[in-house]
């Protein structure tokens, strides 16, 4: 009887502890989400929890303002929806920064995944002198702090006029992503059964056909994990963008734009919650829909630069 009681008590203690930890982990983000839908006066004047009672007074004006970089509706003639859309894309608000983040992230994901798959295939299944040494080099480069590379590359970029260009950032992210990408794919490729390759080469298939027809289709899960990891790494990156893109708003990604909003004290304070959520939308969607690949990619790639 008492044994049962003790057990029930410790079960409820367990649930209480777990649920409180979950609350501590979720409340900060939830509070920011609520704040992002409150008016400027409310955000500055009271805590977000005071809004959680009827009548609700939520508004999307922060989102409009932060995306377009302009205040809409107040004192001005009401804008048509079309001009808001135009401002989002061409203006100096977060809309432009969102676009820049996409422009930076997509090639910075595709190029390294492509380059790394060829290299990983060669390292796993082709014979050439220095192959093992080369892979040991890749393993060694995995955890090198990318701080070691910033100054020489920035100097190189100044000479080649690549500083402040998207091309410069794509190439840099490609290189920084490669050691991990090659490492992950090479380990996956070399675990594929040898018979596959032997029968294919007996049939007279070339290396490229084997790679394209056999290795890639079998490795889709690994490639997906890698692509998701690399995409999020680039999307969330601040340092590489700061160094190679410099201070111009035209090319700044979301992270740079928001961090400069944060340091310009005061006036943009009410836009920060909406801004932060805009930067989180894509990662959250990826997390929700592709969780298994996402987790695998992050776990394997945590040691990267």
């Amino acid at each position: 009887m008492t044994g049962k009681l003790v057990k029930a008590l410790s079960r409820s203690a367990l649930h209480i502890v777990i649920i409180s930890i979950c609350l501590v982990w979720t409340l900060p983000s939830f509070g920011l989400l609520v704040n992002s839908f409150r008016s400027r006066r409310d955000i500055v004047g009271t805590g977000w929890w005071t809004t959680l009672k009827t009548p609700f007074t939520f508004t999307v004006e922060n989102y409009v303002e932060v995306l377009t970089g302009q205040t809409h509706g107040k004192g001005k003639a009401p804008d048509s929806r079309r001009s808001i859309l135009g401002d989002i894309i061409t203006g100096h608000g977060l809309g432009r920064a969102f676009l820049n983040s996409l422009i930076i992230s997509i090639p910075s994901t595709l190029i390294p995944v492509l380059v790394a798959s060829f290299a990983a295939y060669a390292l796993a299944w082709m014979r050439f002198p220095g192959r093992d040494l080369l892979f040991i080099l890749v393993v060694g480069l995995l955890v090198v702090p990318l701080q070691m590379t910033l100054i020489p590359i920035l100097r190189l970029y100044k000479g080649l006029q690549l500083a402040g260009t998207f091309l410069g950032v794509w190439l840099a992210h490609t290189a920084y992503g490669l050691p991990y990408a090659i490492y992950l794919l090479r380990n996956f490729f070399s675990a594929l059964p040898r018979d596959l390759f032997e029968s294919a080469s007996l049939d007279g298939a070339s290396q490229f056909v084997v790679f394209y027809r056999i290795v890639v289709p079998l490795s889709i899960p690994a490639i997906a994990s890698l692509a998701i990891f690399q995409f999020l790494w680039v999307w969330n990156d601040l340092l590489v963008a700061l160094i190679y893109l410099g201070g111009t708003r035209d090319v700044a990604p979301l992270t740079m734009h928001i961090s400069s909003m944060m340091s310009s004290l005061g006036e943009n304070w009410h836009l920060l919650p909406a801004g932060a959520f805009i930067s989180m939308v894509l990662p959250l969607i990826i997390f929700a829909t592709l969780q298994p690949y996402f987790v695998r990619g992050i776990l394997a790639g945590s040691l990267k630069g």
Partner: protein
Amino acid sequence: MGSALFFLTVYLIYPILNTAFISFLGRNSEEFTGLDNYWYVFTNPDMLAALKNNLLWLVVFTSITVSLGLIIAVLTDRVRYEAAAKALIFLPMAISFVAASVIWRFMFEFRPAGMPQIGLLNALLGTLAGLEPVAWLVNTGVNNFALIGVGIWVWTGFCMVILSAGLKGIPLQILEAARIDGASEWRIFWRILLPMMRTTILVVATTMVIIVLKVFDIVYVMTNGNLGTEVIANRMYKEMFNYRHFGRASAIAVILLLAVIPVIVSNIRRFRAQEAVQ
């Protein structure tokens, strides 16, 4: 393969060697200055403060992320909503440090005593404990811990997932045998789980150490290293862009590299051992 080799050489190998070389040169790499930059790194008060703060990060951040991750992994292993709870705690890994910093800026927000607090932490402090509000990011007694707290919020989920995978790798028979022998859960944790998970814990802790060495975004965005919160990576950024002293910035980068060399060596060793088995 050729293209990969091109990227690795131009963007990683050449710059590493070049940075090591620049670290022995002056401000604009025009004259040889010997160990001057390293002397600066280990004697300048701002640098020493940064090194000290990284040490604080190392101790507090690493111990809390790893132990909290382990505790959560063990606890959630016993409930049916394990997957959901773990997803919530892992979620911050998906967002940028910049977004995490915005989230916590609002948590830490401070208003002088007597005014309505808009930051949740100070509001709770006032209504639940009746205490004076704390300027979390300004007060030099707590601001480093506030920043470390943000880091912990982001990275604990990572530790939890890896440790949880390690936990599931322990054969159930061993645990059941211990329970039949009448061992308490507490004893099982210390005598069986912990020793059997030693390697996993070591890997996770190493990862956290590397994260700490390179911590940059959180500090850059929240305080920019002001008010005694400087860290090495932010200091390097300042030497590079604010003071334009490339020799010193390079020396700091070299220090970072030296700190991870043991990890590089052990990675290569582990890889060779794996290959030898196959």
